[in-house]
């Protein structure tokens, strides 16, 4: 498959008074054309920072401290601000978590949509309106002509997120980065938005990077999953393989911690919590919580190595983690 996006050894640091903190450490990932990749991890794992860093949305005191983001053959991480602006919201668009926060409450939906269009294209108001209506139809918003004149507060939560999706589609991007797009929504609406994203990716041949903490959602929508822990990719592979046969002890713990078994059984719990970024242990970051740890885990950081199942895992254990 042709690569749409290649992230190579990307690191993101935040310069704090107490010293630099690395939120994303040496992450390498790739995304094929029209591929759907899930980025999974708990809060603080660095998944949002990684998503933001792709389009260089890291604000101070954060900065990209190393690595490359190659998008359609160009390293966009080194682009100057103005050049980057022409990529953001154009070839790569982003969907954020809370649709109430991402839409401007004092502008009509139409104004906001046309603003995006005219920032990237030299078109007339009439043409812009036509494109907006077309995209609103794509996300199944009834009577789009009327809806363009309305303000965000006149829409329900699910409808607002549909509008955000429509805005992200305006410029026919090659890649959509969706950062927890349904976390603020109810399950029935979540299911609708996920169906919509899936359908759009397939019909428009768009790449999707879905950032979420919800393994179940990711497993239904994506083709590949990357599991992040403490700023590192600890496991990446085809979705079905990861769900059915996880290799890394953290992924295994995460899947077993989900309530899905018979009623009333004790859930598997991972002891302890994710280390603070300022106080990262030497060696494997998961080592203090891992039940399979060996001496070398505490001193050496395991590199990502290919597994038999066609994925990659950052763990010294050779299949021994599977009981």
């Amino acid at each position, binding site marked *: 498959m042709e690569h749409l996006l290649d992230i190579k050894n990307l690191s993101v640091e935040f310069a704090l008074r107490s010293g630099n903190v690395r939120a994303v450490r040496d992450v390498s990932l790739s995304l094929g054309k029209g591929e759907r990749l899930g980025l999974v991890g*708990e*809060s603080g794992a660095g998944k949002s920072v990684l998503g933001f860093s792709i389009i260089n949305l890291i604000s101070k005191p954060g900065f990209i401290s190393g690595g490359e983001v190659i998008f359609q053959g160009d390293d966009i991480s080194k682009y100057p601000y103005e050049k980057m602006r022409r990529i953001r919201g154009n070839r790569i668009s982003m969907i954020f978590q809370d649709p109430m926060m991402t839409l401007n409450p004092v502008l009509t939906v139409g104004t906001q949509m046309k603003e995006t269009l005219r920032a990237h294209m030299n078109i007339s108001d009439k043409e812009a309106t036509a494109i907006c209506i077309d995209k609103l139809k794509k996300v199944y918003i009834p009577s789009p002509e009327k809806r363009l004149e309305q303000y965000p507060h006149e829409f*329900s939560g*699910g*409808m607002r997120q549909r509008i955000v999706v429509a805005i992200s589609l305006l410029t026919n991007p090659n890649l959509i980065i969706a950062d927890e797009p349904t976390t603020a929504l*109810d*399950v*029935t*609406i*979540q*299911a*609708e938005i*996920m*169906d919509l994203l*899936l359908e759009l990716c397939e019909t428009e041949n768009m790449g999707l990077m879905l950032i979420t*903490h*919800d*393994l*179940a*959602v990711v*497993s*239904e*929508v994506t083709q590949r999953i990357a599991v992040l822990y403490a700023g590192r990719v600890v496991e990446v592979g085809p979705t*079905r393989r990861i*769900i*059915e046969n996880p290799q890394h002890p953290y992924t295994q*713990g*995460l*899947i077993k*911690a*989900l*309530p*899905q*078994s018979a*009623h*009333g*059984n*004790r*859930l*598997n*719990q*991972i002891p302890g*919590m994710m280390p603070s970024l300022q106080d990262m242990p030497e060696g494997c970051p998961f080592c203090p919580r891992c039940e399979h740890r060996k001496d070398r885990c505490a001193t050496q950081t395991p590199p990502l190595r290919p597994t038999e199942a066609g994925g990659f895992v950052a763990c010294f254990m050779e299949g021994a983690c599977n009981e």
Partner: protein
Amino acid sequence: MSKLLEVKNVDRHFDISGSIVDQLSFKGGKITREKTLVKAVNNVSLDIRKGETLSVVGESGCGKSTLARTVMGLYQPNAGEIHYDGTRIDTLTGRRRRPYRTRMQMVFQDPYASLNPRMTVKQILEEPVRFHNPNLNRKEVRDIILTTMDQVGVNTAWIDNFAHEFSGGQRQRISLARALVLDPEFVAADEPIAALDVSIQAQILNLMMDAQEQRGLTYLFISHDLSVVEHISTRVAVMYLGCLCELADVKELFGNPQHPYSRALLSAIPRLGGQAGGHIRLSGDVPTPINLPSGCVFHGRCPHADERCRTEVPELLTLESGTSVACHGIEEGRV
């Protein structure tokens, strides 16, 4: 099993009409005064049996939290009765209510907001014990606190630390300790794990299940996370727009949901390794609880709605399987 708590035809409405000037409006040549009510809970009846976990599920705004708060006495019901262990408690006040406050405790959603940032763990846990047991001496109080902290897995060495020094999971353990420190029989937990990460969620859920086993607790568990509800509950109540749609055994509900809304809701749960797109699509959005639809509150989105659904409010009907469901279609056998 005996009933511990009975909720009988409870209504809870909130007046959001503001000042008298806001209430006045000019209609048909006359000035009229109208109140705007949010009808958060409407005519809900259910009972909770001793030792069980009754979960209430529904989408945001369906009134599940309001129901829990009304049961706990944080809100007065506008109509209806709440009986606890045979006594009507919603009319009790002051001293006569107090014994029930020790027997019924609550855990809230956000452990960042429900613990006072200016109190140490010791102060947080001490306050209810001292208030309800003024005769205990300092050592006895301390013993109770230390035992409870131990049970919920909070290191007793941190007794003098402030809540902000703990992580989210630890804080929720402290909230749980605060609820358990009075040795209650009944705990209402309002989305206790919604603010936590998956691996931490599992820790808190295990803790709650252990506490239930050790102390014989009865839970009213409020959650929007249906896979958690499936795991922890004995029975489940489904609410929509302030009304109870269905009340059933957990296996019955998840295996064989009856009400059209329950079916749609359950089909939307994302399943690990499942396929997207298999869920029942509902048309439209949840109406506002200010102007409730006439008849069945779900009729506007229900694929089976007919004339009767639009005009007549369905009563709860108990089926052979033990499931209670409020739906005309099921009563008539056309759903």
